[in-house]
């Protein structure tokens, strides 16, 4: 398990060699670019890469094609034809049958609160572990990491039971509490490694100025790790948004469910024709898509943050 802890310390190093080699680059870049920009082979490679991209996108494309067809047109012309007219009843059907605005609000509410609470909890724990160097921190971090890897099935029945006992069954708060802790388990692991490399000189300076631990946390540590917290928040939001298993079990009525559950539970519905299925899938992915477009850069940074090395 020692490898887990070597990762964080090494996390600080890649930033250092990068600029030095980067500064040498521009001199050669132009000459090299010219050399690279010759030959026909590159066009074949580009075509192949685009073909892969099209394969990845094709399910989305045929979904969009069919979300706006009438059932009659779908059965007549098949899934590949361009819709002749804009048929909006599929979208309307899905919208009203699932009470979509309610589901959207549920998803936003749950995910946003988990993002905020989860980040806050991660920061507090990571402050104790990374800056405070609590005794046994290696074990604590390992424990958090293991907790994050546990299958949710190994927690669900007791959680389900507990929620009923404290009156939180079918409540969004049960989901919020559970995911705050599960996400914070990962967040603590990640943030503790970041704070483990926090410059001690800054802490000393603050202490000389008479700042207490609480003030140091909010006036020295917090502003510096703010970007990392932002990435964590976005990630917690998306992960919670996409969660399926625990919400499926815990949220039993229509008015509490999230978008993925609403869509999945419509599936068994015999009344669902192909255009409605497609319209439903389209409407359900739009929020995620918008989020993706806004935070594309941050997301890429966040995905790789887990792989700090």
């Amino acid at each position, binding site marked *: 398990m020692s490898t887990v802890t070597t990762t964080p310390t090494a996390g600080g190093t890649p930033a250092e060699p990068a600029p030095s080699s980067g500064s040498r680059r521009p001199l050669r870049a132009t000459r090299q670019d010219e050399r690279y920009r010759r030959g026909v082979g*590159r066009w074949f490679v580009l075509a192949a890469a685009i073909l892969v991209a099209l394969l990845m996108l094709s399910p989305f494309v045929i979904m969009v094609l069919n979300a706006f067809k009438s059932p009659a047109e779908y059965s007549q012309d*098949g899934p590949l034809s361009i819709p002749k007219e804009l048929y909006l009843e599929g979208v309307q059907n899905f919208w009203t049958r699932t009470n979509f605005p309610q589901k959207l609000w549920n998803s936003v509410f749950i995910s946003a609160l988990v993002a905020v609470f989860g980040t806050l909890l991660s920061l507090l724990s990571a402050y104790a572990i990374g800056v405070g160097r609590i005794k046994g921190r290696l074990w604590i971090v390992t424990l958090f990491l293991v907790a994050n890897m*546990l299958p949710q099935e*190994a927690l669900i029945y*007791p959680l389900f039971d507990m929620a009923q006992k404290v009156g939180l069954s079918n409540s969004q708060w049960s989901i919020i509490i559970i995911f705050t802790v599960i996400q*914070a388990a990962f967040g*603590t692991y990640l943030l503790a490694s970041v704070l483990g490399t926090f410059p*001690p000189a800054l802490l000393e300076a603050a202490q000389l100025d008479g700042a207490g631990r609480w003030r140091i946390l909010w006036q020295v540590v917090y502003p510096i790790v703010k970007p990392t917290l932002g990435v964590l928040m976005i990630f917690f939001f998306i992960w919670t948004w996409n969660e399926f298993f625990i919400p499926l079990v815990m949220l039993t009525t229509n008015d509490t469910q999230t978008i993925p559950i609403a869509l999945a539970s419509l599936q068994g519905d015999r009344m669902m024709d192909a255009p409605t*299925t*497609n319209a439903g899938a389209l409407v359900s992915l739009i929020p995620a898509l918008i989020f993706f477009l806004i935070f594309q850069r941050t997301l890429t940074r966040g995905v790789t943050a887990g792989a700090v090395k």
Partner: protein
Amino acid sequence: MTTRTDTVPEAGPGPAREASRATAAPRRRRRPAWLPYLPYLLPGAVAFVVVIGYPFVMNVYYSLFKWRGGMAPMRWYGLGNYADLMNDSAFWTSFQNSIAMILAMVVAPTLIGLVLAAVLFDYLGRRFGPRVAAFLRATYYLPQILPVAVAGVLWNWILNAQTGALNVILRGIGIENPPNWLGDTTTALPSVMLVLIWVQIGYPVVIFMSALQRVDPELYEAAELDGAGWWRRFRAITIPQIRPETFVVTLTCTVAALKVFGPIYVLTRGGPESSTLVPSYYSYLNFFDKSKVGYGAAVATVLTLVIIVVAVVILALQSRAERREQEGR
């Protein structure tokens, strides 16, 4: 690591103690410097115990009983549930299918992702600019941002025997009886695997591309001047340089593959005839469908054990590889 551990707690409070709180010094010296930080760990620790620790212990406890759940009486069964599992063919099928999930979520995406990332970064990125590479990368990553239930519903329609896009297309090009992809025992598992590959590919591509940014470009330049072709450079530089990230991808994806639930629930519900059954769905089935809570808890406990063992093995392999590399230098 060790130097840092020494400097922070001692050098940290040290000067402050002498400068401003000279009177408090003797009393403070006896207390370890980390002690005042303990309250900051408290909320996390309490939350962890309530939401993860206690439920997990309770799950193991439940697995020792025959219990129909809720107010029904709990009958002590000892390790009986575990013994029953050993003779349960569905249980074994579910773990066999886990291997298929690992192929679809770890092996295939990692191999494909490795090639895609290398092509994007060190071939297309240089020839057509980083924007082209970034755009293609985003395209590959798109399925990853979808709620897995949405992806499942979409594919469920595409693969539907009667009205699904795939079979409509196949009939259009003259194939009379296209397969019932998700409804046939022989095609259901491969179909699910294809969907999972589609979902997973973007993750290794993004990780590997950022790993490649870390590699010193001079390595490639030197190799190129020595006359090494793209394939040689890929094998001699790219693969060894991004080994740490490969371990991370392998670890996280293997754990995810063992835990997979959403796609199975939405696509096949384990069917037909258990051909796509996975451990997590099997435990869900026992909990909430068959009302065999103790049995479901036993399945979940075994799954947890398997995940921890697999994770420890991967981490051990990683540290061994790291050690070897350091000794090599």
